[in-house]
Every structure is written in structure tokens, then in C-alpha cells.
């Protein structure tokens, strides 16, 4: 299924402001608003009905003069940097943005999730188990060292080494046997299992200079061939970047960049109010309301590429969730639309009964979302022998997903109507993650979670929903088998058919509670241009001057 061209921009759209006369009173009005945001988020939620809903497709012209943008681009991240190690991956709203501004990989993912060339100018599948990538010859590290095919081979040798401390190689080791370089412009991938989406899977395998990597602490020091180099780094508070003088691509609009980590919502909102940021992502939708009349910022409330679900623990001994009727009942008992309207101003649509959704993935036709039908939910529970109701626990990672706490409260209220008592546990992210990795018997019944899909039609997207995934507690043998087949498929039509079967199977067996795509929020200075990247990777080189 192809994506209608007009749907691509429908997710994140800049919502510009009407003309307004700057007034000293405006700032004063912001004070109580922010106070309310910090102290009483729930109170704000209650007030949200009164707020004008943001239409993600709305775009108003403004004649107000553009705000001044300095020599330094100021970007706000919402999580501390874990490191700047190119082989340790990175969260998009954290070091992932910095690393992607400093390093290059063989391929890249465009804001609309298409896989595009980067260090590799082209690629070709030579056979089911062999791929060839043609390498650019003008790539140079920021100290003047040329980046060659041998450099790339060395990086993949490290990533494929089980004893290596880098972590991004682990998924590759499942299907990549070795990487070689027959000539200076070619890199060959020898696979142990077919992977039709191999180019997409390589987008985050960043390439570092081997000599530098072996002589420096690459957790805090960097040498990449990307548009920028790191001048100063503070993992807790951000990084300062300047142009890589040897960068072969188009020169970015800003000579210097400052990434500032502002981990709390209050800090991000204060930075925007003080006009100390050019772009800030992950601002709560309810906080964005106060910038509707801003002369400085446009706001975005749109669709992100990752689905949000309540992952189900089917492995727990004696759990009612082992019964498909109970799982279906939970899906019928969830009024996604009301939550979306109340919390996300209708910026997203409920997931279509599958974790793939347009415009980021190809939706499987004829598979539809579970409608909100509390009567049917009650009946299913009665049929399953739970006429007196059941009690379940949902684990929500605190401060991780937009409005997750409020959404889970809403679900609790909705499920109470059909006799499901939901206990909400809010857990700090590390403990939340560890609980999922741990014994499923000690895990929560449900987990509020967002699964990542960075590039279009990447079928690794299905992995987290299979039974044997590291964070999964479902029992879905039929789906598992289909996913294994589709990921090993060598023919795209066959693969598409398997995808349809897998999606249908997962929906019918209700192995998850389908919610909605992750909302994507941002405030962007009108003095800069930026094609929204809803995957939340905020790369400095993609920002221009208005």
C-alpha cells in the first residue's frame, strides 16, 4: 500500500501564530500558567476542555517580524546524555541527537522515515545473504583523517565481536556474519539470515576513526565525519558543537550549536518563556497551549512514528490475561478517542488494530481498531468467567512518555466501568526497564510502553511483540512463527502477505492493548526552519535560518 502524498505532512505540522501586539502583560499571564503546569498537571488536565484544541493541520500566516536568531543554535534535549559513544546507541531526545550530528553511518533515515544514502551512495542486494554498499570517497573525519572502506569494516568488526563493549552490534549479530571490503569504494555484508531491510537497519551504526577509538575514551571524546564536532561536553547538561571543517556535505546554517539538557517539563517551558531555546521537543501538549499566541514560537502537536500500547503479561501464573477474551475485553473497554481528544487535542488517531500505521508504516488493509464497546467488554469478561471483575496492575515509567500518567488514569476510569480494577504503578525509567527484563512472574500485568520504528517498513518493528523478545511477556506462537518467516523472506510480495497474516493474528488474539501513535510535540522559534522529525532526533545540521 502506498502512502498518499498528502498524508505525509499531516502528522507534524507547524502551527503558526496569528499576529499579535507584544504586550508586557503577556509575560505576566504566563507566570500562573507555568505554575499551574508544574504544581497541578492534573488540574490543568481538568481545564483542558476549556482550552482551544490544536488542529495539527492548521497553519496560519503571521506578519510579525521574525525573532532574532544568534550565531549559536540553541537546541533543548529532555534527557541527560548517557555518553557520546557512537557504538552505544542513544535515545533520540538525548545523545542520539548529538551523535547523529557528529558521526555518519552508511545510511540515514529522512524525517519522513525513508532510508536514504549517507556514507554509502548506493547499495545492492547481490543474493539473499550478500549485500554490496558503494562508499563515498570524500568523507573525512574532523581531524583531517580520510574515512575509507577499511574504516567501515573495522567498525563493523568491533560491533560484531561478542566481547566488544559497544551495544549497537547486538541486533546485527543476529543476522550479519561478517563485513569485508574488496576495494576502496565497496563494503560487502555477508549475512547469516536474509534481511530485506538491511540498509534501514544500518542507519545507527555510526563510523568512528579506528586509531582515535583505540587511543581515547570514546564515551566522552569524539571524532566523526559528520557536519559538526564536539568542542565541549557535559553529559549532565549538554554539549557545544562547531562545524567540522572537513565535512563534505552541505554546510549547515549555524557555525556553532549548543545542546542543553533540560530534563524537567518546567525547565523546558521556562527556557521557552525566556526565549533561550530555538527548538525544544517533548513539551507536554497542555503546556504548548500557552505558546499559541507567541510571536516567537510555532508549536507542533502531531503524530510520531512509534506506537503506544499496553503490553500484556500473559506468562504470569494464573493471570486472567492468558484468556484471549479478557485481552479482547480490555481493548473494547478502552476509549482511545476520548483520551486523544482530552490529552492530545485530537492530534493522533487510535492505532488501527495493529502497530503499523500510516504515514510511517504500511497499514494492513481490512484490519481495524477495536471499537469502544463497554457492553461487549463486560460480556467477554462474563464469558471468560470474570463476572465479578478482575484486578490488574499497569506499570508506567515516570517522566518518559508524554502525558502517560494522565492517560493511565483515564484508562483506569474507563476500565472500572466494566469491572476491571486497575492499579497504576509509576516507576522510574531504569527500574521500570529492569522489571521488564526480569522474571515475568514478578512483572506487572500491563506495561505502558512505546516501541520504536525508525524507518519505513522496517520489519524489526515486530520484534518487541514476539514472545521471545527481551522485554516481552506474551505467549504468541502463531505470531512468532509468522514474524520469523517474514523477516527471513527474500521476496517482497511474500513478505507483505506474511505481514498481513501476522498483523491479523496479533489483532485477533489481542496480545496487546492497542492505544495510539506517540504524540510528537515541539516548540520551534520562527527564526529557524526545521522539517519536523517526529522520531525526535534533533540533528543540528537539519536546522536552517528563516
Amino acid at each position, binding site marked *: 500500500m502506498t502512502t498518499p502524498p498528502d498524508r505525509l505532512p499531516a502528522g507534524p505540522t507547524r502551527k503558526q501564530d496569528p499576529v499579535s501586539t507584544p504586550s508586557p502583560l503577556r509575560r505576566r499571564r504566563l507566570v500562573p500558567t507555568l505554575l499551574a503546569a508544574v504544581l497541578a498537571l492534573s488540574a490543568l488536565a481538568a481545564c483542558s476542555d476549556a482550552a482551544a484544541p490544536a488542529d495539527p493541520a492548521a497553519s496560519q500566516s503571521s506578519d510579525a517580524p521574525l525573532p532574532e536568531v544568534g550565531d549559536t543554535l540553541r537546541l533543548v534535549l529532555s534527557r541527560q546524555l548517557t555518553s557520546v559513544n557512537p557504538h552505544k546507541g542513544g535515545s533520540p531526545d538525548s545523545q542520539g541527537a548529538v551523535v547523529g550530528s557528529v558521526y555518519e553511518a552508511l545510511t540515514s533515515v529522512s524525517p519522513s522515515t525513508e532510508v536514504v544514502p549517507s556514507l554509502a551512495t548506493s547499495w545492492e542486494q547481490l543474493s539473499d545473504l550478500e549485500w554490496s554498499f558503494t562508499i563515498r570517497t570524500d568523507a573525512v573525519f574532523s581531524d583531517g583523517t580520510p574515512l575509507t572502506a577499511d574504516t567501515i569494516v573495522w567498525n563493523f568488526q568491533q560491533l560484531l565481536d561478542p566481547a566488544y563493549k559497544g551495544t549497537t552490534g547486538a541486533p546485527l549479530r543476529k543476522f550479519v556474519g561478517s563485513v569485508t571490503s574488496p576495494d576502496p569504494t565497496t563494503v560487502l555484508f555477508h549475512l547469516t539470515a536474509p534481511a530485506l531491510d538491511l540498509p534501514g537497519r544500518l542507519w545507527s551504526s555510526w563510523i568512528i576513526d579506528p586509531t582515535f577509538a583505540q587511543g581515547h575514551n570514546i564515551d566522552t571524546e569524539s571524532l566523526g565525519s559528520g557536519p559538526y564536532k564536539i568542542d565541549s561536553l557535559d553529559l549532565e547538561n549538554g554539549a557545544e558543537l562547531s562545524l567540522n571543517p572537513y565535512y563534505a556535505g552541505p554546510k549547515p546554517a549555524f557555525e556553532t550549536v549548543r545542546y542543553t539538557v533540560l530534563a524537567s517539563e518546567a*525547565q523546558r517551558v521556562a527556557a521557552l518563556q525566556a526565549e*533561550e531555546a530555538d527548538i525544544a521537543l517533548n513539551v507536554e501538549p497542555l503546556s504548548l497551549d500557552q505558546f499559541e499566541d507567541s510571536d516567537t514560537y510555532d508549536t507542533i502537536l502531531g503524530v510520531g512514528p512509534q506506537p503506544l500500547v499496553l503490553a500484556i503479561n500473559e506468562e504470569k501464573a494464573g493471570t486472567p490475561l492468558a484468556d484471549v477474551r479478557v485481552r479482547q475485553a480490555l481493548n473494547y473497554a478502552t476509549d482511545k478517542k476520548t483520551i486523544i481528544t482530552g490529552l492530545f487535542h485530537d492530534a493522533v488517531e487510535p492505532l488501527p488494530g495493529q502497530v503499523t500505521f500510516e504515514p510511517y508504516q504500511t497499514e494492513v488493509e481490512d484490519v481495524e481498531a477495536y471499537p469502544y464497546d463497554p457492553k461487549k467488554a463486560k460480556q467477554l469478561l462474563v464469558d471468560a468467567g470474570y463476572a465479578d471483575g478482575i484486578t490488574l496492575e499497569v506499570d508506567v515509567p515516570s517522566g518518559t512518555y508524554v502525558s502517560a500518567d494522565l492517560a493511565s488514569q483515564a484508562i483506569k476510569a474507563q476500565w472500572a466501568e466494566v469491572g476491571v480494577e486497575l492499579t497504576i504503578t509509576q516507576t522510574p525509567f531504569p527500574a521500570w526497564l529492569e522489571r521488564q527484563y526480569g522474571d515475568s512472574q514478578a512483572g506487572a500485568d500491563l506495561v505502558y510502553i512505546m516501541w520504536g520504528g525508525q524507518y519505513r517498513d522496517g520489519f524489526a518493528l515486530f520484534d518487541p511483540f514476539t514472545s521471545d523478545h527481551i522485554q516481552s511477556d506474551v505467549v504468541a506462537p502463531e505470531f512468532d512463527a509468522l514474524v520469523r518467516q517474514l523477516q527471513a523472506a527474500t521476496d517482497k510480495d511474500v513478505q507483505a502477505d506474511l505481514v498481513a497474516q501476522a498483523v491479523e493474528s496479533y489483532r485477533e488474539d489481542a496480545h496487546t492493548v492497542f492505544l495510539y501513535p506517540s504524540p510528537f510535540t515541539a516548540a520551534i522559534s520562527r527564526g529557524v526552519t526545521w522539517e519536523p522529525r517526529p522520531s525526535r532526533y534533533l540533528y543540528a545540521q537539519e536546522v536552517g535560518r528563516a
Partner: protein
Amino acid sequence: MALAHAPARLRPPDPAGLVVRLRAFRLPLSGRYVGGRVLTGLLAVWGAVTLVFFALYSTGNPALLLVAPDAPPEEAARLTALMGFDQPVPVQYLKFLQGLLTGSFPDSIRYGSDPVAVALGRLPASLELGLAGLTAGVLVGGTIGYLSATGRSAWVRRVPLSAAVGLDAIPTFFFGILATLVFAVWLGWFPATGGRGLAGVVLPALTLAVAFVPAVARVFRTALVDVLQADHVRTARAKGISHGAVVRRHVVGNSLGTTLNVVGIQAGVLLGGAVVTESIFGWPGIGQLSINAVQNRDYPLVIVCVLVISVGFVVINLLVDLLAALIEPRLRS
């Protein structure tokens, strides 16, 4: 009597009495007293880091945070073994103790380097902020305490002290956000996103000072009121010395002992207690480092941060103890 007189005749001339004074000189504090305090301090440091060690290691495995979401299930075990977290906790504790004695700790998980260097690198920023906050807190608190004890008008005596006590009820994080709103967002005087330098230190120092003002004001006021009622003050007044002169010469100095004790303790708290302030303002100190290390389960760094903070706390308290014992000999027992 003859024996008593004999040495006196042999004694060389000592017009200034220097030798007598030297023979009479004794160290103000005994080695036993100082040694006891040092030993207690070391035990406190060991206790703190041991407690933190077991608290951390009983709550989970930091290697799991490094596992890529799309990694195969065996990746968690691989990383756990690679980082040594698969060993029994007692074994890891023994290794930790060995590291504590030799000063060689495992690398920080995030920084990939010696956690001691990482933690010590943050100490100057914490000291800078702490010193600024303490100075502001002592000056404001001292002034309020002085006014509330010596003010002639009831308004002067009561209003500033009531305001200071009111400050005590405001949580640090709330005051920090409020200060950012008013002084950075609304008035635009200082940066909202933090930063070093004079402009950057004002709001965090102010926030930190708020925590000291009430304690210093109350203690200083109480001490002043006590001394104002002392006999020697009444005598001085009876001699006709002015109120101001009495307070300056005979009251303030005698009231500083207790206040110094409180200031010393607060200074110790500063090292680890500025966690919230440093986090709110993005101040690159050891408080912010340690809270982020906890959140990221960077165990080696957490333990070293606790070690540095507890050593600092103990050293400051030791100095305060010794100073207090010097001033007040009865405390030496």
C-alpha cells in the same frame, strides 16, 4: 623549703617569662581527642558508602540499561558478565573495599573512566555554588537575627524573622522554579537555562541561601538574646555605655560560637544537599552528578560521589568540632 629555693637560685634570668610560658604550654586539644574524632569520621564514611553499596546492588543490575531494545535476549547476560555484575554481591563488595583502600574503582559506566576524577572534577563548581549560597545565607540570616534581637521597633524585630521562618516552609525545588519564573522569565535578569559566571550563579545561590537563612537567623537571634541578658552586659550598660556599643563590643562576639556551629553543619550539608538546586539550574556540581548517576544506575560513580560527599561532610564537621572544642574546653570531654 631549702629544696624549693635551690632551683630558683640556679634558674637563668628570664625577664620576659618566655621559658615559663613555653613549659606551661600545652596543645589545646589532646591527640587522643583529635584521633577519636578522625576515627569516628572514617567509620562514618565507611558506613555511608557501605550502606549505599548494598542499597544500590540490591535494587538491580545496571547492565540492563545498556541493552539495546532490539537486542536478542542473551545480550543482557552478556553485558552483565562483561561488567562483572554477575558475581555474588559479597564478592563485589570485597572488590569494592579493595578499591576503597587502594583508591582504584571500576570505571564509571557512563563516563567510561575513573569515577574519582569525574566526581572531583565537579567539586569546584559545587564549592563555588555552596560558598556563594552560604555567604548569602549567613549575611541575610545574620542580619535578620541581629535585627530581631536588637531592633527597637516591634516591626523590625518580628517581620523579617517571620519572613525567614516562612521561607523555611518553601521546598527548595519550588523556590528554585519560582525564582526562575520571576527573575529569569518575567524580569529577564538572569538566564533560565543556567550557566556559569556571575549571572548564572545568582539564582542557584539565592535558592541555596534560602535554606540557610531561617536556621542562621533563629540561632543567631537566640544567642544574641541570651547574651543580652548576661551579667556583663548589664554591667556594661550600668557603666553608661551606649546600646550600640554594648552590642558591638560585648554581645555579637559572644554570640558567634553557637552560630558558627550551625553554619559549619550547614556547610557540610551543602556538599550533598545542593542536589535539588544543582538539578533545577543545571549547575555542573557533584550533587547533580550524583542524582543523575543514581537515575542512570552508574553504580561506581554513585559510590564515589557518596564517598566524596561523605568525606567532605566529615572533614567539615571535624573542623567544626575541633574549632568548638578550642573555643569551649568543656566540649573536649
